[in-house]
């Protein structure tokens, strides 16, 4: 529990300090340092969990729970938080030098960055479903002003859309949470814990069979639409491409890489409750079927939209919607193999997508624009950026030997076993998305660079680390990680895969 406190306290203290630091040079390094310390604490937390010291505890009157499912996402969040802060330091120095933001906004940026990481860590580790909602909403509030950081009309519009759509969507999720609490109060729980711990996931999960299925069914629909807005499921995805493309690039990396995962995580927790509650009714797979439907539609629609994009960051945010759809589908399919694939996909997608956004940040600085038709010849101007973009897109499109191929292959196998016809939709969707990505990528990487295009100072270390990890995961999943994912699969489905 002490380790958890440390993991949460570091970004909290960091957020407070960073809003006070006035020097640009110091705040960038301090942000990096805080993120590194958070990762250290998160790793220690994961290590102690793997030695069987998980469980829960109470901090400031809030119940927390550490189990294999969230500790793995905590480490992922802290890791991507660190690599993005490595990238964001020179990136913001560049933006500041170009005069697009002033020092005050820079301070706000760093403070919000750590607040955002903090609220995601709370969302992941809390046991209380109400606090989970508060933390996810908090993450929205922390990022909404960052999306409009540049104050261009487009950025303000994107941020307003993000705020309104996510705020309204998440309000539905709160209604779903209230209904869950309602079900818990009318279930046969021990009376003493009903009021105080009535929203604790651990308690509800232990008594899931006693929750009223009719209430839980309706609650899940609200929760699906609410958290689904945050995941970016079609048709609630409208805010996502705007917010991801208009905000500063480090924000796009953490939004795509992390926030979407946290929303999906919330939905999985609720799905486990609903599955337990509906087990004895005529439609035990209702939650799974809904997830599959929404996931598949998002996956296919986003794949088609990839072809029409003219803005490089918009294009990759549609690719995020596509992959989130794929994961939602996989969790909906259920069963150990699909769940294992989905967990692995969460990991590799976060790593690859944040790496791509970092590279895209460099590419847009080289070309001076985000328009795909004006970004040309990256490989000739700056081979490092060109090659990493090429390799990153190859990885996200699912080419072997990268980790994304691995998880997609596992998912296709699982689909073949239980819903053979849907394999067809999945394979054609993957092909459409791959074509969409490469169609735009080819001229950007290989085309003729416009006269006078200059290379920029780029720090490709975070990108290389991410891509090497994804490569490693594709070639051989290390034993401890496989064991980790297997235990998470067991937690969700009740069956060990390995």
């Amino acid at each position, binding site marked *: 529990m002490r380790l958890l406190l440390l993991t949460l306290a570091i970004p909290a203290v960091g957020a407070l300090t960073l809003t006070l630091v006035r020097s640009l040079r110091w705040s960038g390094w301090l942000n990096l340092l805080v993120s590194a310390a958070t990762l250290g604490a998160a790793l220690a937390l994961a290590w102690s969990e793997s030695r069987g010291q998980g469980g829960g505890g109470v901090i400031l009157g809030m119940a927390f729970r550490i189990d294999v499912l969230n500790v793995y996402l905590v480490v992922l969040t802290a890791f991507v938080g660190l690599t993005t802060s490595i990238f964001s330091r020179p990136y913001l120095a560049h933006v500041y030098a170009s005069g697009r933001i002033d020092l005050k906004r820079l301070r706000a940026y760093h403070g919000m960055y750590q607040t955002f990481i903090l609220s995601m860590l709370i969302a992941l580790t809390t046991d209380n479903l109400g606090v989970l909602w*508060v933390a996810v909403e908090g993450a929205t509030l922390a990022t909404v002003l960052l999306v409009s950081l540049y104050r261009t009309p487009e950025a303000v519009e994107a*941020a307003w859309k993000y705020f309104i759509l996510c705020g309204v969507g998440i309000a539905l999720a709160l209604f779903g949470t209230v209904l869950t609490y309602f079900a818990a109060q009318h279930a046969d729980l021990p009376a003493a814990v009903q009021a105080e711990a009535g929203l604790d996931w651990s308690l509800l999960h232990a008594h899931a069979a006693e929750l009223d299925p009719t209430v839980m069914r309706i609650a899940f629909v609200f929760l699906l639409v609410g958290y689904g807005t945050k995941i970016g499921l079609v048709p609630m995805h409208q805010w996502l491409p705007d917010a991801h493309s208009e905000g500063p690039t480090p924000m796009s990396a953490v939004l795509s890489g992390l926030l979407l995962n946290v929303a999906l995580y919330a939905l999985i927790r609720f799905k486990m409750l609903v599955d337990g509650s509906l087990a004895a009714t005529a439609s035990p797979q209702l939650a799974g079927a809904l997830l599959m439907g929404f996931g598949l539609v998002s996956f296919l629609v986003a794949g088609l939209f990839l072809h029409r994009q003219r803005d490089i960051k918009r294009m990759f945010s549609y690719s995020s919607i596509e992959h989130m759809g794929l994961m939602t589908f996989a969790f909906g399919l259920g069963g150990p193999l699909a769940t294992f694939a989905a967990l692995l996909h969460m990991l590799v997608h976060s790593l690859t997508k944040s790496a791509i956004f970092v590279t895209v940040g460099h590419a847009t600085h080289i070309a001076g624009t985000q328009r795909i038709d004006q970004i040309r010849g990256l490989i000739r101007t700056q081979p490092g950026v060109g090659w990493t973009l090429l390799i990153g897109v190859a990885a996200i499109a699912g080419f072997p030997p990268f980790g994304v191929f691995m998880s997609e292959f596992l998912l296709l196998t699982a689909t073949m076993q239980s819903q053979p016809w849907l394999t067809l939709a999945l394979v054609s969707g993957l092909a459409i998305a791959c074509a969409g990505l490469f169609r735009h990528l080819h001229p950007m990487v290989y085309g003729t660079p416009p006269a006078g295009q200059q290379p920029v100072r780029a720090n490709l270390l975070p990108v290389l680390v991410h891509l090497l990890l994804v490569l490693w995961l594709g070639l051989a999943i290390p034993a401890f990680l496989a064991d980790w994912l297997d235990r998470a699969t067991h937690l969700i489905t009740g069956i060990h895969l390995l």
Partner: protein
Amino acid sequence: MSMSTLTLLQQLVVLLAALVLFLSFVLLAQGRLISAIHTFAWQGALIAAVTLVVAAGGQIHHLYFSAVLTLVLKALLIPWMLHRLAVRLALERHSETLRHPALVSMAAVALVIFSYWLVLPMVAEEQTFTRNIVAISLSVVLIGFLMMVVRQQAVAQVLGFMSIENGLFLAAVSATAGMPLVVELGVAFDVLVAMVVFGVFFFQIRASIDSLDVDRLNRLTEVPEVSEVGP
């Protein structure tokens, strides 16, 4: 569904909840911005009254605290902030007319019917009280959505957003006797921060499009105009 089977306190809660729903309708149709803010403040006061009655009826101590919190936040602080913003943005005399007022009201009525239809199978026949309350709060939430759809003005949309929060709070208080205290505090904190962020946004939007008519925020479309691309 006979009201006479309810205790007096429950009848009082149902009456107050009905008034909350009525104010939702008023809010939906109210064109003058300042009056709409006042209506919203009254709605917040009614929600606080519901909380107080439930707290007194069930001897639930932490609900007294929630009642005070709601009164301060929803009936005083947020309306005051909105009022001040409206003055600073020179919107005191602003009013907008709904395009199809009758149609919008009918849609709101349909939403109330839909809420009852959705809630009926959920709650057992004998729990008349819970049934009514859950249905009413869902209606308030849905009418808030409707308001955000039909209004083009940013401040009016925020009023819709806040009345959605009111509906959610009504559901939490009356159907489940309040969420755990830590959750309530968290939600209240989020609402307050959201209000501050909204305030920042009003100025950003006005600086960028010189108006608060969010229908004019239409630069970001799926396929931007091609004409601006030079060869």
